[in-house]
């Protein structure tokens, strides 16, 4: 119906954002929301890292400590990495496949607007009498059911809303990719970022209902006298863990697969060379996503699982390393014999590779059941999973620097971007690398206080965390400065960048590809 933006009614002010169905507006809102929550959850981590600066009481009580680690985890996952990835999907998938918008624009509006309300509910527990949710982001029963504070019901409602938001967003993305591609864009010509999000959307559709079922059972146990997870009533606390990790493990891929997609766009652009092994990259991601559903019990090796299931889940977990290795080697091969330059997006992409490799290696260590007996529940695991998660964060930052010129038509400050990169990559390692050793030496995770022999490395880790936190302010400043008074960006700021989105002007007009493009302008031609 619409023709090149003529006759479109644009409400102004808050209404524009409340009512918008434009994928670019919604993408911006997702990204800004993620950025705000990044500082909220990051601030929480600074609170508990400072408490851990030395043994004994420093400045917060154990109860508050537990509340902070719980909110930090939940917000970082559901409020930062997922919305940021959804923001990238919203902004970039339509222009990358030559579509005018998402397939279901009103639904798109709603999937975003559920988020601020969901997190307002979760954070409002801070101002209620009684503790905030205090059982860790894994909220194991019965700590969260029979023993959970009153605020747990708010927490459950938050999870329901987040689940709904994710399901609707995933549905929308999958439908868009299936139906709205430009005629010439066959499946195997799709950019890898689009492929990655397609796979992510399918994972989300499979796991979010499981989580919703799990928290509904919690709600029933807490309020309607059922006993799904209550041993005294004939229920099973381990059932909760099965449900949680059946969601929770694939969730890891929800966080990191979009990052794979981002890296697969950026590395070729700055290597001035087509992605190596495109087909293998796509297949590897599909295999990883599939295997991701078969490994959940590797989070439960010490629950008393029989040896048969321990062996099955150990082997299946180890097998995931193979397609993951294939991806890593293909990225390396893309850079090999390329023509590399090191602008900020590329630096962050390289940072991703380094951090992800370390997290992958410790992941293999954790897969080995006997060793996992010593790692599980210790700081080794904290160190391990923060590596892949921070690699996802670095990929998102890479994506922001990469596409920012396209979004707002301005260039960010390269010098500041480089500073941001070096401070981030160094402080991430100063924070988390020592945690491997703290865990091996025997420090459990989620404790507000610790024996004296863990002091030195905890101090190093806390200093790293503070530097990491402060360097993100530089990121914030750089972003604001770019939007306010960055230099004009050319249409294709990166000479190696290929793909439909770079055929559009910078900034992208409000409406793009109202007519599907004839040519793909990728490496395909």
């Amino acid at each position, binding site marked *: 119906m619409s023709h090149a933006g003529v006759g479109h009614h644009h409400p102004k002010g808050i209404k524009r954002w409340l009512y918008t169905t434009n994928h670019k507006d919604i993408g911006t809102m997702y990204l800004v929301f993620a950025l705000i929550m990044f500082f909220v959850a990051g601030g929480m981590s600074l609170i508990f890292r400072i408490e851990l600066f030395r043994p004994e009481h420093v400045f917060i009580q154990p109860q508050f400590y*537990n509340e902070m680690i719980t909110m930090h985890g939940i917000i970082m996952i559901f409020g930062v990495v997922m919305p940021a990835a959804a923001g990238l999907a919203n902004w970039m998938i339509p222009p990358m496949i030559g579509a005018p918008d998402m397939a279901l624009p009103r639904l798109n509006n709603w999937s975003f607007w559920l988020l601020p309300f969901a997190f307002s509910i979760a954070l409002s527990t801070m101002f209620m009498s009684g503790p905030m949710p205090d059982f860790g982001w894994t909220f194991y029963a019965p700590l969260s059911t029979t023993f959970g*504070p009153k605020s747990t019901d708010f927490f459950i409602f938050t999870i329901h809303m987040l689940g709904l938001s994710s399901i609707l967003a995933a549905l929308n993305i999958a439908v868009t990719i299936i139906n709205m591609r430009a005629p010439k864009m066959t499946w195997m010509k799709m950019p890898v970022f689009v492929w990655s999000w397609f796979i992510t959307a399918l994972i989300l559709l499979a796991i979010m209902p499981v989580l919703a079922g799990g928290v509904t059972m919690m709600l029933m146990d807490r309020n309607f006298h059922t006993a799904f997870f209550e041993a005294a009533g004939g229920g099973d606390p381990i059932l909760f863990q099965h449900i949680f990790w059946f969601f929770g493990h694939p969730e890891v891929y929800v966080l990191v697969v979009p990052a794979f997609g981002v890296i697969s766009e950026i590395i070729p652009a700055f290597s001035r060379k087509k992605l190596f092994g495109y087909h293998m990259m796509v297949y590897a991601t599909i295999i990883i996503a599939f295997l991701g559903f078969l490994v959940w019990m590797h989070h439960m090796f010490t629950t008393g699982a029989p040896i048969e299931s321990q062996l099955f889940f150990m082997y299946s977990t180890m097998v995931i390393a193979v397609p993951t290795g294939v991806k890593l080697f293909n990225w390396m091969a893309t850079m090999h014999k390329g*023509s590399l330059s090191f602008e900020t997006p590329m630096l962050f992409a390289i940072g991703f590779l380094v951090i992800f490799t370390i997290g992958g290696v410790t992941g293999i260590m954790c897969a080995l*059941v006997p060793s996992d007996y010593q790692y599980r529940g210790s700081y080794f695991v904290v160190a391990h999973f923060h590596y892949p998660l921070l690699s996802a964060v670095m990929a998102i930052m890479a994506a922001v620097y990469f596409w920012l010129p396209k979004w707002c038509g301005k260039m960010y400050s390269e010098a500041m971007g480089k500073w941001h990169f070096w401070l981030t990559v160094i402080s991430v390692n100063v924070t988390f690398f020592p945690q491997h050793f703290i865990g091996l030496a*025997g420090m459990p995770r989620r404790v507000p206080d610790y024996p004296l022999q863990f002091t030195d490395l905890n101090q190093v880790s806390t200093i790293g965390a503070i530097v990491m936190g402060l360097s993100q302010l530089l990121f914030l400043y750089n972003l604001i400065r770019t939007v306010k008074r960055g230099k004009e960006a050319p249409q294709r700021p990166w000479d190696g960048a290929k793909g439909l989105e770079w055929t559009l002007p910078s900034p992208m007009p409000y409406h793009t590809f109202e007519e599907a493009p004839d040519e793909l302008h990728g*490496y395909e031609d």
Partner: protein
Amino acid sequence: MLGFASAVCYLRRFSKRLCQLAIFIGALCWQALAQAFSSYWNMPRGVTPVSHGIYHLHMVAFWVGVVISSFIFLWMIWIFVRYRHSKGAIPGNVHEHMGVEIVWTVIPIILLVILAIPATKILIKIHDDEKPAMSVKVTGYQWKWNYEYLDQGIRFFSNLATSQAEINNERPPGPNYLLEVDHPLVLPVGEKIRFLITSNDVIHDWWVPDLGVKQDAIPGYVNETWTKIEKVGTYRGECAELCGTYHGFMPIVVKAVSPAAFKQWVAKQKTVSNGLTPTKPKAPAKPMTESELLTLGKTVYGKNCAVCHQTNGKGLPPTFPGLVASPIATGALEGHINIVLHGKKGTAMQAFSEQLSPSEIAAVITYERQAWGNAELNKKAGHPVLVHAADIVKKEIEESGS
């Protein structure tokens, strides 16, 4: 041609800062690695066959990881030096190569098999079901452990022995800060000991790194594991599953002694009445005086109740209610005895009938009814402020009593 020479040239020009950084990072890594190998920061080798097996597997996995990541990082550095746009590198045009894809699929598979074989072997050893010499039931409570020697009839609680003063910075911490308990788990060396692990409330996890034992304590489940300690010594660990507010304050101490010393220890528990062997409810021959009750009550309170209700009786509301002028501590005696004996389900307030002797329960209730100005309130309302062990025993017999 862009050879090695140009790479070197590039490095020379731009590398002063880079080199300094590299030296700094290198030094850090070297430090970290050196630390890792000094057993201080590495996984302990431990004192059981299982812990040795795990340690070796861990080191093999670690070295495999070092080899893989070194390969990737060296390749990366080579690429960064060799293929720079600023040095006029021309991109190659090979974008697909089945041969290399197969190579980097097969080599990792081989490495994984190398890891899977020893891992499987050790796991089978961990699940070994040879008959044990003795069994200990371990029960997690918020926030203490209970040990029951099933063959010897000994049962006791093991509480954190670090004082609140150390935790709250009022006194410098001792050498075993947060790793010391009032009653350690005493075990004989050289014998296979079976642990039956369960929980009274939420999920805990019994972890002693030196034994290579980590097992979840789950309500409604009894998980089995075992150990065979090789060396006399004291081994310490902590709860490894988030179990509420004081998750970080429920350590585990295992004292491994020679079998002869263990026999002696068992015999001593049976003759000396130190609260480690369960007894039938029985009032002491001579009732205690009020001041004796108050003294004992204060000690019992400090050891068992103060973590939650605090030494000053103010609690940490709303999670842990204060007892100062509280409805129960200054209400009818019946309710007070009831909550201390049976706890309150679904809260951290646990049943103390199985943890304390009748005299101790009588003493702590007396103390709570009199301390912090509660005595005046109780007297004004006409509630009793003195409880004797005999009252507690009577109540227990009535309740158990058919």
